[in-house]
């Protein structure tokens, strides 16, 4: 059952009043502009045992994404495509309010939003992931762990997932005459092929003001969020209203405009982090 959440960690009244009254004037308590992201730091290849990985810091929010490739069977209805499995966990390290255990509805929603972002636009070239046609394919596991929670987990996670995928190299495989597959993780046959790059832009709403990349205090005072996935060719590749409140139609349209604009910068940042020598 999904339950109305209690505000686990409440923002002190005075602080929340300040944030809201500043927002009304189009200002943010942190001094950021309404469409400014916090500083983004990306460390690709952070986890040697992963086939691809990235540590992402978005302000004080810290997320790790890792990719593991496993040999599996294709889905019956897509015999000549690989498969994608995205999961997310909010680690108890990230907040005093996070309990250890299987992912809750927030983590599941986050994972599914990112899964659809990648899946619907076919970001990964799934047909390149066939090992034995109709029988053996690569299954791409993207696992996202939130290690420190200072707000906007979705965008931090979507950046981490994208960076980890861009960092991914396929292990070498040998297929014998019987179709048995032997994986050699010590050699790599090449990078994972991406057809599209996508990022999410989460637009927060409070006092009828829209703004991006809310930190944890802003999240706690905002009414609702609209997560918008944008692709590198400027299309809308996913959307999810998340949170208690609602938006007017006009706000939805405006949020979309903001996301389309901001996403370009985000994609540039990810691109750069992966091409610079690390």
């Amino acid at each position, binding site marked *: 059952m999904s*339950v109305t959440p209690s505000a686990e960690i409440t923002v002190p009244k005075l602080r929340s009043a300040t944030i809201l009254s500043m927002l009304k004037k189009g200002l943010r308590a942190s001094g950021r502009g309404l469409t400014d992201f916090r500083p983004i730091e990306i460390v690709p290849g952070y986890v040697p045992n992963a086939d691809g990985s990235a540590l992402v810091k978005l302000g004080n929010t810290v997320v790790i994404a890792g990719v593991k490739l496993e040999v599996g069977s294709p889905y019956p209805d897509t015999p000549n495509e690989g498969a994608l499995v995205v999961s997310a966990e909010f680690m108890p390290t990230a907040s005093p309010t996070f309990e250890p255990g299987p992912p809750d509805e927030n983590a599941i929603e986050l994972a599914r939003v990112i899964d659809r972002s990648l899946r619907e636009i076919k970001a990964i070239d799934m047909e390149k992931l066939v090992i034995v046609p109709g029988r053996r394919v690569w299954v791409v596991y993207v696992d996202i762990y939130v290690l420190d929670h200072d707000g906007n987990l979705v965008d931090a996670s979507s950046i981490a997932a994208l960076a980890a995928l861009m960092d991914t190299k396929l292990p070498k495989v040998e297929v014998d005459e019987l179709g048995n597959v032997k994986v050699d993780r010590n050699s790599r046959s090449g990078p994972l092929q991406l057809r599209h790059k996508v990022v999410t832009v989460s637009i927060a709403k409070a006092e009828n003001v829209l703004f991006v990349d809310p930190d944890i205090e802003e999240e706690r005072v905002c009414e609702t969020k609209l997560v918008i996935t944008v692709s590198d060719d400027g299309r809308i590749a996913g959307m999810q209203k998340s949170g208690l409140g609602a938006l007017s139609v006009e706000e*939805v349209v405006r949020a979309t405009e903001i996301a389309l604009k901001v996403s370009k910068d985000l994609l540039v940042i990810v691109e750069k982090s992966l091409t610079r020598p690390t």
Partner: protein
Amino acid sequence: MGRVKLLREDGLRHDGRKPDELRPIRMQVGVLNKASGSALVEYGATKVLAAVHGPREIPQKHLLLPNRAILRCRYHMLTFSTHERKSPAPSRREIELSKVIREALEPVVMAEVFPRTAIDIFIEVINADGGTRTASVTAASLALADAGIPMRDLVVGVAVGKVDGVLVLDIDEVEDMYGEADMPVAVAPSLGLVTLLQLNGVLTREEFDEALKLALKGAQVIYNIARETLKSRYLGVKVEE
């Protein structure tokens, strides 16, 4: 796998509907005896039952809030409601939709009237032919009203899809599966609020704007049916007295 043709040469959809045409919509409230409120909603072959218990006290006191009722919502599919048998274990999809549907109802329920209580909403998908989450929002909304929970507005849902490059209203299972985009929307029409919005698929900005308009148009029709359903039940009750 041969590509499924979703639009016929005459521009009509695979089931003969026009692009902006809803499926036959049926609604019924008060269908269960032991629930505080209930509703059965059908969009074509999609059939959804919603029941509400509460506002009520619950043993899990730590969940309650001092200034409002909490909503608890479960979206659940019967094993035989789908083409392939659904495993009885809760799927990640069901967990996500339970949240999304709850959050579609939160803006209209006047939860502040019943502090320290729970309002429980149970949704059973009896037959799934596309649009189950949007039909669920409509059914839950009617069940809440039937339970006498004060609401700012009814919320109704409808999905818009893109099939063979064309935007179409109230997509069914086949259109969802083989189409290019599925955009479920729930709105509180009198308040002018969008309370649920998802996009699974890819749209240009122009397509998105058009899809949103189409959804609003369909929602208004469903809203009118929902209000009519409640009114005739209310009148019916009157007559019986």
